[in-house]
């Protein structure tokens, strides 16, 4: 009896893990894998929203190369990575060091720094639009101190910089939490030993803290660069649906949305842009990981 019971369990074993994984696999298959494969396939067709497409080979990709707006989008998304990633790697670490200390009232600051992370991006965007408007708070203050108004929302480059500022401000708290966890694992003895050897605060930061959290910095760099390359909401909210003056602030994901949606949307062409976004994103990840490996060796 006992023997047959064991063999029954053995027989059931191979299916059990699949049953446990089934819900997750189903969700991933339906909402990640299928759309991914579908986008990949559509990129090689001339499919539109209401009209099934035909296979067109590399035509969409050839058209991309001729499309000025695609190059504008690629430029802006790349600039976004360059402008947003360095502050998002460094500033949250400094903030984490600050709030790590057990001083009175620090809980308030920890919560305050994290608040932008949980705030709705639409609400955040609207608040920043009010702040940076021609007649907004920032311009009123500038006027009060005698400086002229600055076209934060009407100049192509200032608009992009403003959107970057929103992204950095909103992301600080999130990456700060990641750094806080990493800092908790830095042995206190290392700091004490460095202090005994006469190292000051800056030196201890550079020679103890930074090496200890280096892998976390790589992770933050990888996560923030992928998120920055796929930026949509911040630029869309500040620059409007047309992508800023003359569309000069359009990012690649905004271009995907503009090209592929609506009743006359070009799903095939938008999918081709999405494939480019995917390839660049993977390349960015590989680049960051490779740089990390090189540093390690």
């Amino acid at each position: 009896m006992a023997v047959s019971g064991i063999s029954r369990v053995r027989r059931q074993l191979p299916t059990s893990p699949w049953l446990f994984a089934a819900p997750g696999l189903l969700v991933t298959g339906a909402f990640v894998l299928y759309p991914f494969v579908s986008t990949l396939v559509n990129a090689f067709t001339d499919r539109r929203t209401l009209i099934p497409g035909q296979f067109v080979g590399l035509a969409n990709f050839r058209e991309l190369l001729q499309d000025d707006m695609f190059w504008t989008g690629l430029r802006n998304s790349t600039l976004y990575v360059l402008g947003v990633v360095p502050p998002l790697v460094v500033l949250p670490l400094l903030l984490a060091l600050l709030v790590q200390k057990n001083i009175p009232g620090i809980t308030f600051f920890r919560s305050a720094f994290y608040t932008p992370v949980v705030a709705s991006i639409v609400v955040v965007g609207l608040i920043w639009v009010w702040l940076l408007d021609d007649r907004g708070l920032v311009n009123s203050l500038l006027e009060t101190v005698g400086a002229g108004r600055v076209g934060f929302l009407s100049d192509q480059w200032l608009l992009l910089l403003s959107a970057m500022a929103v992204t950095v401000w909103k992301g600080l708290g999130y990456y700060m939490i990641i750094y806080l966890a990493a800092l908790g694992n830095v042995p206190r003895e290392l700091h004490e030993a460095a202090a005994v050897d006469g190292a000051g605060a800056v030196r201890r930061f550079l020679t103890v803290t930074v090496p200890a959290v280096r892998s976390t910095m790589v992770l933050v760099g990888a996560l923030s660069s992928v998120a920055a390359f796929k930026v949509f909401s911040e630029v869309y909210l500040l620059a409007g649906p047309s992508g800023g003056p003359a569309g000069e602030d359009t990012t690649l994901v905004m271009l995907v949305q503009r090209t592929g949606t609506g009743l006359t949307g070009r799903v095939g062409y938008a999918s081709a842009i999405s494939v480019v976004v995917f390839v660049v994103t993977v390349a960015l990840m590989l680049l960051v990981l490779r740089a990390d490996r090189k540093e390690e060796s």
Partner: protein
Amino acid sequence: MRISRRAFAAAAVAVLLPLSACGSGGDGGGSSDASGKVEGDITFQTWNLRANFKPYFEGLIAEFEKKYPGTEVKWVDQPAEGYADKISADAAGGTLPDVVNVSPDLVAPLAKAGLALDLDKAAPQYKKEYLPGAWAGHRIPGMTGTYAFPWYLNTGPLFYNKTLFKEAGLDPEKPPKTYDDLFADALTMAGKSGGKVATLANVPTIEDFGRYGVPLMNEEGTAFTFNDAKGVELLTKYKELYDAKALDPQALTATPESSGKKFLTGAVAMNPGSALDLGNFKKQAPSLYKNIGITDQITSTGHVNMYVMGVMVNSQSKRKPAAVAFAHFVTDAAHQMSFAKKVAIFPSTAGSLDDPYFTKEDGTDETRVRVAAAKSLKTAVNYTPVLFSEQMKIALRNEVAKALQGKQSPEEALDNAVKECDRLLQQQG
């Protein structure tokens, strides 16, 4: 036997490629025969109307179900934001409601995909009940047929801030009527305020080109023509306004909401709107409300722009007789009139605009706006080409912005805009 990963991937793509390409989309449309007994369940979709008009539509549906026993209407309302995306998702997924509230530019792609019922074939008996111009409002260039019942019409008034006009030394009782008047007043206002008060908050749209007298498309509807000398002249004038700060510096990225806010705060002197905005001014900017001026849209052709709303019947509907009957019921003269008494819209049915409700003032601002709008509607034109898609609007806007910034001449900008719009038109098929 082992299959290599590469071979597996290639096989997966090979299998999935044709499957996906054969995905959703119209299949050429259903029959246009809508005869038969009016019965069964149908779905009716409106465009952001539930919040303000729930009792009206519930009453309307109850009345229809009473008139046609055996019918049941399920009413769904979609928010204004992303309405076109919702329709396109439904259309692509085969879940488009039986009766849909649409505008002409939404009908065009649906009709081309065979999803809109041709009413000239399915319900020609109703044609005479509507204003001829309104019935023609849902015809698509390059296609025969009419693809939606005309519903309500609108022509937004233009609001202006009398205080700002007075401060600029302009007569607040004589607002600009034509584009030439507008340009002159705007330059005066910008000059007097040292560039602090702009007259307009938006770059010119396709309707502005139409009202300036620019031919927008060729007669066949196969190519855009707004890059002619008249179009270049309009854009050149706007460039002068932009340089003089008579056009708000943020106009290049403005949305209707942002320009409305600028008008509320007194940063711009004129803004288009609707009678509904009066209540908004009263609540949010009482001092502006006291000095609000109301005038017709600026036009140099003598005809203002008319916005047409329609009710389309899904050609794939399984209950076509009921769907057509309900679409007609919603848009017939009696119901359009009762709806017009609830909100500042205007019926598209023949003779309705001659009703005293639209011709006699009682001294209030509301009736003044209503009577003036009804009068201008009689000669109004729907300038927006039905084939002018969202992508085309953005293409025009971006080229106009480049001209205003001085990155290219107005002529180059309009040539580029026409070229891009023609390309998009060709792609629409």
